[in-house]
């Protein structure tokens, strides 16, 4: 597959997944563009991956965390200890984005790969370089945290 074909076919999906994670349209576009630029740099390796868009999304999320850490050192954020989504570009799914944003990075990666990109446990484990059992453990904790952060999830279940 050519890089241009990959970009055309995967860019929107990657953008939506990252947007759900960061909650800011412009930031998400910037992060995904960075992820694709790095994929272009490593295309000889990335093109052989089973799910190259997962590589792009993971890079985008990691870049976001790196930027946030750098920003945290430079600016006193007071009680804000997480990257803040929202702003004028906040999307309707901001509640989900906010809940995802409060997860530790590894849990967020697992949720993103397993539930948003619909990868199986083994593929997720391979991409993240961790054991399948560790993926399951992170997913279990993340699901519990998301249910706690978004009470309507439980309400939906009760109404069914």
């Amino acid at each position, binding site marked *: 597959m050519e890089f241009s074909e990959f970009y055309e076919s995967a860019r929107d999906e990657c953008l939506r997944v990252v947007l759900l994670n960061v909650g800011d349209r412009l930031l998400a576009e910037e992060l995904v563009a960075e992820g694709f*630029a790095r994929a272009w740099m490593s295309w000889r390796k990335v093109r052989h991956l089973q799910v190259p868009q997962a590589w792009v999304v993971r890079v985008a999320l990691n870049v976001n965390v790196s930027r946030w850490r750098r920003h945290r050192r430079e600016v006193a954020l007071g009680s804000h200890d997480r990257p803040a989504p929202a702003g004028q570009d906040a999307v309707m799914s901001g509640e989900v984005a906010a809940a995802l944003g409060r997860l530790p990075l590894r849990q967020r990666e697992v949720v993103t790969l397993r539930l948003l990109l619909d990868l199986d446990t083994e593929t997720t484990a391979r991409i993240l370089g961790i054991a399948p059992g560790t993926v399951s453990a992170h997913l279990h904790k993340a699901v519990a945290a998301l249910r706690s952060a978004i009470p309507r999830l439980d309400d939906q279940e009760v109404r069914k």
Partner: protein
Amino acid sequence: MNDDTALGTVRESLATARDSLTGVQMRTPLDSIVRNGRAARRRHRLLALMISTGAVAAVAVAALAVGLTGGTGSAHRAGTIRTAAFILVSHSDGTATLTINPLVLLDPGTLQSDLDQDGIPAMVTTGSFCSSEPQPAGLSDVVSSEPTPSGSGPVADPTITIDPAAMPAGTELSFGNFQAAGSQQTSLTLVSTGSYTCTSTPPALATPGIITLTNSQAAQ
């Protein structure tokens, strides 16, 4: 709620949120992605080269920092790399002039590294030539032959000018260097990045879409 039910509920909620973003589309054009990738690769290789050669002097670090914070990828150094096998002159407009000495064996790694530093994505091979099918268009916009300067002596080494800004997205230059009797032949063409085949047979001199640098006079 058991684990499977909770997982299913969260999955469903995330899928709903994701599907609500169907209208959200990436606006960044492919060319911009590739341009940023090239700029980043150039910076990384320059940094690696500086570290590997131990040339991390304060002045150089300061110069690099200026380049990193500039971040546009459009700044080009102007300078000359002179080896026994080739001379690569970088111009401030981003183009580069390459002169190959057919009498000296070319080191492909050195040339590829130096081209990369000048923002020219290239693959340099010895004893083989790589090409894509179909061949990307635009070679004549990227590479032009230099007229031989008058009075430069009896031996005129082949010279070309390369304009990396004219390279179509997703392409790189393929240089295939072959040793002939007493001289060398270097053929070049545009290939699609990551999609090409290589052959150990030198291309014929007048093959369309392939530029071949040779100098029989120098080889005599």
